[in-house]
């Protein structure tokens, strides 16, 4: 077809649109630099570094959930399934067979993909709540299974990673600083994956399915395939980030791995920050861990346990009622999900 003369007035193609202006790049580059030099600053101790690592890990996990739920519109309520599979597979392979997490994490990712493929194939063709319920059911089942196979998983007590000292091969360190850089790399890579996805043909198809499945099919989108691929991508990203989670915490138990409270923590970064945006989970994850640290401190002071859960709940209520587009939506008025932010 011959292009019209007015072509220059037409908005750029997605690839061009994803190019960021220099000022935006600077805004993103500054926090990266600040986090990177954190261990060098005189007033920063291991506690602050550890809290930052926690924030970065949950930003990565939140970003992974954001892909299936925020961009794809598939409410994976039991997404901790893939966190748990990642942690347990890596941990068991290391403790029992000496398989380093570099390889164990890859195997864990393959296992997560297989589980996601089965779950998705069975439920993603259906409309309604079946997919969400299936993810919850699988996560609850895995809580019980991991409690049951005590020899393999350590049962309700959980699984503690054998500590071999500072080792790059075993991905272990006595101090949290190395994890800071690993977690920062995860955040940067996951952020860019999300940004690239939002402006790619596949990302547009995911958003189309999220907005209207019938219209998406009428536009030529293979709805089931798009939903399944989005789910697989998210599951793989979650289980890879789980490797970092396990190496940092050095232990995992059934509730922390597959539990629903953990699943909610995976969702909070994107919900607080802004669903379907690349920046949302970054802001939301940082806020979540900051609040967690403050409330933990407050809990200790006033002797009330579980204050952090109460604060999470309140935050979630406020966001749902007052800012359904999250903090990003509040700050950038036009940043409804679908924008590259």
């Amino acid at each position: 077809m011959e292009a019209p003369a007015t072509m220059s007035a037409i908005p750029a193609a997605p690839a061009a649109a994803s190019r960021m202006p220099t000022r935006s790049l600077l805004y993103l580059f500054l926090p990266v630099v600040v986090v990177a030099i954190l261990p060098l600053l005189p007033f920063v101790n291991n506690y602050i570094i550890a809290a930052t690592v926690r924030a970065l890990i949950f930003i990565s996990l939140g970003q992974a959930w954001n892909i299936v739920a925020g961009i794809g519109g598939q409410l994976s309520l039991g997404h901790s399934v893939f966190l748990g599979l990642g942690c347990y597979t890596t941990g068991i392979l290391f403790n029992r067979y000496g398989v380093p997490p570099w390889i164990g994490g890859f195997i864990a990712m393959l296992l997560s993909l297989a589980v996601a493929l089965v779950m998705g194939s069975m439920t993603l063709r259906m409309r309604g709540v079946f997919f969400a319920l299936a993810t919850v059911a699988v996560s609850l089942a895995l809580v019980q299974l991991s409690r049951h196979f005590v020899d393999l998983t350590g049962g309700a007590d959980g699984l503690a990673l054998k500590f071999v000292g500072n080792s790059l091969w075993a991905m272990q360190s006595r101090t949290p600083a190395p994890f800071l850089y690993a977690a920062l790399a995860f955040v940067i890579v996951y952020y860019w994956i999300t940004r690239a996805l939002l402006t790619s043909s596949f990302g547009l198809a995911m958003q189309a399915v999220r907005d209207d499945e019938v219209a998406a099919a009428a536009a030529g989108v293979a709805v089931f395939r798009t939903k399944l691929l989005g789910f697989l991508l998210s599951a793989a990203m979650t289980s890879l980030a789980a490797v970092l989670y396990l190496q940092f915490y050095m232990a995992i138990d059934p509730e922390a791995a597959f539990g629903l409270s953990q699943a909610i923590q995976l969702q909070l970064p994107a919900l607080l920050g802004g669903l379907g945006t690349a920046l949302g989970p970054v802001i939301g994850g940082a806020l979540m861990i900051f609040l967690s640290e403050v409330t933990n401190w407050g809990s200790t002071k006033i002797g009330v346990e579980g204050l952090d859960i109460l604060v999470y709940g309140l935050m979630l209520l406020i966001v749902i009622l007052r800012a359904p587009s999250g903090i990003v939506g509040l700050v950038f008025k036009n940043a409804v999900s679908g924008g590259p932010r």
Partner: protein
Amino acid sequence: MTTAALEVKGIARNFGGVVALRDVSFTVGEGEVVGLIGPNGAGKSTLFEIVSGNLSPSAGRISYFGADCTAMPTHLRRRAGMCRTFQKVRLFDSMTVADNIRVAASQCLPPGRALHDEVAAILAQLRLQAQAERRPAELTLADRKRVEIGRAMAGHCRLLMLDESMSGLTHEEAEHLIVEILALNRERGITVIVVEHVLSVLAAMVKRLIVLHNATVVADGTPSQVAHDPVVIEAYLGTKQSALK
């Protein structure tokens, strides 16, 4: 008549005990602009859903440019160029106008210049350049309908099925849209099937009308023939005079 773009043979559809379509057969030639009319409940929308692949027929066969597509999924029909709009406009509300069109074009074209040019050409053809970066909620109904047509034809379109695209529009807006639809037919060689309630709207744009009544085809001919068909007058139009209003 030239090659058949669409051949509907003996299509039937039941919803429980309700017969929505009964032995519906017709052929639409390549490059034709055909109107499909009928009173509420005649089965127009059900037929549209079946032809576009959203519903399976209880019986019958659909051929698209000679190939049987009765069991083909909706998205594959669309990629083969069988495109549609909806009675109630269904756009991707979180996306811009350009992205609404781009998402459909990208299912048929590889990323890059060809995709960009296709989006640009459609925006230009439907006079939507100024709205390209707006979201559907910011548009008038006429523009929303235009975007839906643009999305429907983006990438690859050989058969365009429009479901009451004129409803809710002012007379002037409807006239503009008719001109644009006819231009698509003329310039891109797209075969068009239009579902409408108002015969006068269709009479201005089609040379052939198919009338559905009580779940089956009761007339098939030029607007003038249909308007004078006693079965149609009795079943749907009421009087000859009101038919041509």
